[in-house]
């Protein structure tokens, strides 16, 4: 398997892009993964689903700007070096 570090970075970038593309209103709320629906009380056990929902929301919020930069760099590099 010809793995290079660069392919790992590309795969990671694509995964983060995939998470960032999930739209709050149009999609996540429709399948019950919206954040306004699942913030329960301050109970002891968050549970996997609410952890996932929080994770998705945090990633979308935090990575929005860095993703723009990283995607642009990757596109330029791919255009230049194939």
């Amino acid at each position, binding site marked *: 398997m*010809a793995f290079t570090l660069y392919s790992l970075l590309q795969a990671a970038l694509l995964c983060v892009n995939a998470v960032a593309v999930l739209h709050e209103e149009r999609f996540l709320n429709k399948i019950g993964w919206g954040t306004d629906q699942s913030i329960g009380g301050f109970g002891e056990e968050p549970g996997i689903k609410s*952890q996932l929902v929080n994770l998705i929301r945090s990633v979308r919020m935090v990575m929005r700007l860095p993703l723009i930069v990283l995607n642009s760099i990757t596109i330029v590099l791919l255009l230049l070096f194939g």
Partner: protein
Amino acid sequence: MMRVGGAIGAGNHIDRFIPVSKLKYYFAVDTIYVGKKLGLLIFPYMHQNWEVRYQQDSPVAPRVEVNAPDLYIPAMAFITYLLVAGFALGTQSRFSPEVLGMQASSALIWLIIEVLAILLSLYLVTVNTDLTTIDLIAFAGYKYVGMITGVVAGLIFGRTGYYIALGWCCISIVVFMIRTLRLKILSEAAAEGVLVRGTRNQLRMYLTMAIAAVQPIFMYWLTFHLVR
């Protein structure tokens, strides 16, 4: 909003990422420790007490405690695995320097993927554990000892020897992982062996078993193409 801030800001989640100042503790090993640990990795069945003696802020230096994870063995085992892989490929006339580089980056990347997957699942199950990222890298690196044994046995005894040695090492690593991780991931009562009901403990047990079960898969995946 508060919830997200709390989850991200709480130290347990972020400062897990590579505390570099603690790195030197993981290399504080001596010959006796390395010998005992290698023995434990190949034959973990006689060892009774898997508990790491707790120390205040710093990680336990492996020199004083045989159950503590270290980075010396994984690092050395990784490099030895590359050398053995090169040697094995050479005996089949498939060797070239690029292949060695490919092997190195493949193995390294699988290690990174495994550690990231474990980190993600630990986050999702909200386990309050003192397992740092470096501990996870150490545990993920211990499988290289079994892989080296398997490939060397395959070189000396052929395919049968490879399967026997690899099978033995796989089972040993699974037992080693389960016994070590059980103390760190499960709650106190469950780790004692008392059956504690509840979905959380069940989830944690499944997680421990999943981490242990993934090791043989990687061990086979990274070595089967080396032995003919």
